[in-house]
């Protein structure tokens, strides 16, 4: 193994490859910051260029683009509350409030360090556990996935609702309902389209997330312009761009990062689960683990709340390489694109790759890691300048947020209907936000809706329509028991508070 790591490092650390990763990080960050263009698009855009290089250089360029795009996505989540990809939605829960308090530079620095630490720890787990974890990922069956999704949705409802669990569960159901619009994945029967052809393919994730986060946030700012309690705090540009993390904040990060990297990595290893569930679960778990006074800060700019999802989503990104490299199964859209690129280079991922071509296996892992290091070195000095976006006056910033949201949808579909739908959802979301209906559970439910139906379908068909599949397997029963514990704990806490 040590020999493999050294070969990987030697390949990745040549002048040409370091230059490529720098170019990749730079372009990846720019692409990732644009709404609607996430890591998957960024890598797809780079594939034709990478074929001009040897496989190692091509993969290293893609690694730079990948991590750059993930960081770019976090940047738009933190600064504009506009997460372009599902994996960075949870980042905005505490990153955006922190930026609104004039600590945009600090929020971006915490995100950058947490991402780096999450990726680093995950790379270490990957070094030692990859072969054995591939067996674990294969042992997960449909009932387990279904139970895991129920757990994810219940956890986010319980932890993001600030004591209003039923409201959060209503938003979960609404998210699942929105996800059910369009063709059924198996039978191709159209549902809830009301003979409108524009709805046949369903509603896109970018549309829903832009409407409920970015656009609705922009409308809320205008709506509450005269509200004295919502008056923006005036901060200096120096304070806005400061990336200094104090001792207390560092201590909080040091507690959060190790535990959330483990959960992120484990979830990332499961095919199909990915960075989204990992970041939401890590956020929920972290909120449950911190002290009571820290719990109150969640959703208002908590360091734990920002570090947890950022660590977990990066750890999950590295974890997703376990099924890809050891089994040849891409666990997410991004790794599917990476698989395509690997096949294009004539590399066939699978169990044989690890045994017969360890140098390629380690080159890929090391190139991902070098990409992350370079990203940190390149982007930390840029943070003070990126953070100044928030110093743009609201009269300009709000129209620009609306412009980026609408452009994100327009370049995806070239369809007026999608723009109207986005505006409609944004107006409803703005109204619901006024009455404290949380949006994060809706987004997670929307992302998981299709997968959840798919796994429930398989489970019910295998058990001939019986719901006993929920407790037939020990793993399913354990996940379900955890869900019940979370709900029970929430009910207990509510009653305790009232008394």
């Amino acid at each position, binding site marked *: 193994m040590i020999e493999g790591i050294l070969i990987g490092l030697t390949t990745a650390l040549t002048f040409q490859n370091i230059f490529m990763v720098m170019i990749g990080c730079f372009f990846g960050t*720019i692409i990732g910051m*644009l709404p609607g*263009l996430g890591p998957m698009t960024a890598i797809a*855009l780079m594939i034709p260029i990478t074929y001009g290089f040897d496989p190692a250089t091509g993969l290293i360029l893609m690694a730079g683009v990948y991590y750059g795009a993930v960081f770019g996505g976090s940047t738009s989540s933190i600064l504009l509350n506009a997460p372009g990809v599902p994996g960075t939605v949870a980042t905005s829960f505490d990153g955006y409030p922190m930026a609104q308090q004039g600590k945009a530079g600090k929020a971006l620095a915490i995100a950058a360090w947490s991402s780096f630490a999450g990726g680093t720890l995950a790379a270490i787990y990957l070094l030692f556990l990859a072969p054995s974890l591939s067996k674990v990922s294969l042992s997960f069956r449909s009932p387990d996935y279904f139970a895991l999704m129920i757990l994810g949705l219940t956890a986010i409802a319980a932890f993001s609702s600030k*004591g*209003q669990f*039923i*409201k959060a569960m*209503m938003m979960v*159901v*609404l998210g*699942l*309902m929105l996800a*059910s619009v369009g063709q*059924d994945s*198996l*039978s191709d*029967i159209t*549902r*809830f389209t009301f003979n409108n052809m524009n709805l046949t393919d369903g509603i896109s994730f970018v549309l829903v997330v832009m409407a409920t986060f970015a656009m609705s946030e922009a*409308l809320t700012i*205008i*709506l*509450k*312009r*005269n*509200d*004295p309690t919502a008056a923006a705090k005036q901060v200096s540009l120096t304070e806005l761009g400061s990336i200094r993390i104090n001792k207390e904040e560092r201590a909080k990060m040091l507690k959060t990062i190790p535990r959330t990297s483990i959960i992120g990595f484990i979830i990332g290893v499961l095919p199909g689960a990915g960075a989204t569930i990992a970041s939401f679960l890590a956020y929920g778990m972290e909120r449950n683990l911190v002290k009571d006074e820290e719990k109150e800060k969640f959703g208002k700019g908590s360091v734990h709340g920002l570090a947890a999802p950022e660590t977990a989503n990066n750890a999950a990104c590295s974890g997703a390489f376990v099924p890809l490299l050891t089994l040849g199964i891409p666990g997410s859209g991004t790794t599917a694109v990476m698989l395509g690129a690997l096949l294009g280079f004539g590399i066939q991922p699978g169990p044989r790759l690890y045994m017969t071509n360890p140098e390629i296996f380690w080159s890929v892992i090391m190139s991902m890691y070098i990409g992350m290091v370079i990203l940190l070195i390149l982007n930390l000095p840029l943070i003070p300048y990126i953070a100044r976006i928030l110093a743009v006056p*609201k*009269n*300009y910033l*709000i*129209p*620009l947020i*609306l*412009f980026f949201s*609408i*452009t994100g949808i*327009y*370049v995806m579909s*070239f369809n*007026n209907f999608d*723009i*109207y739908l986005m*505006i409609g959802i944004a*107006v409803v979301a*703005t109204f619901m936000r*006024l*009455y*404290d*209906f949380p949006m994060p559970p809706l987004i997670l439910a929307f992302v998981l809706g299709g997968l*959840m*139906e798919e796994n*429930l*379908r398989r489970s*019910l*068909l295998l*058990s*001939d*329509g019986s719901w006993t599949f929920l407790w037939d397997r020990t793993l399913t029963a354990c996940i379900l028991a955890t869900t019940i514990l979370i709900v029970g704990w929430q009910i207990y806490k509510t009653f305790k508070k009232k008394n």
Partner: protein
Amino acid sequence: MNINTTKIISLLFFIFSAFYLYTAYQIQVFAFDENAPFNARTFPIYLGYAGLFFSGLKLILPDPNTIKVEHKTLEYKKTAILVLIAIIYGATILKVGYFLTTSFFLMGSYYFLGERRWILMFMLSFPFVAAFMYLLHGVLDIYLRDPFLKLIGVMG
């Protein structure tokens, strides 16, 4: 029962869930799938009942954390104008093209939000959109439909 806006939203959600459930039962499935343990209408039916359950609970249970919104302080007029401008933007973008509609949308939004520095407004609309279009179309090779620029021969 104390009636507040949260309860009204819950009632609307209850009605919406009932409509969703009714529509779910109307989904046409293949004849051989009709009695299968799972078909295209199974999951939506569960969702419809879940919606009725949670909104029903919210309606029945007392609401100790009543949210009070000060409507007098809210800027409904400016928000409505901004939404209207966005709708007009959406309606014209395909026919007029990305460059002109986006630039006018930005100019209009800046103006209605109270901005009057015309040079700055211009710089942050027409040249800004042109630069953004160059990034998307020219550098990243992302297609942007624009009949106007095509007509004047700027875009292929």
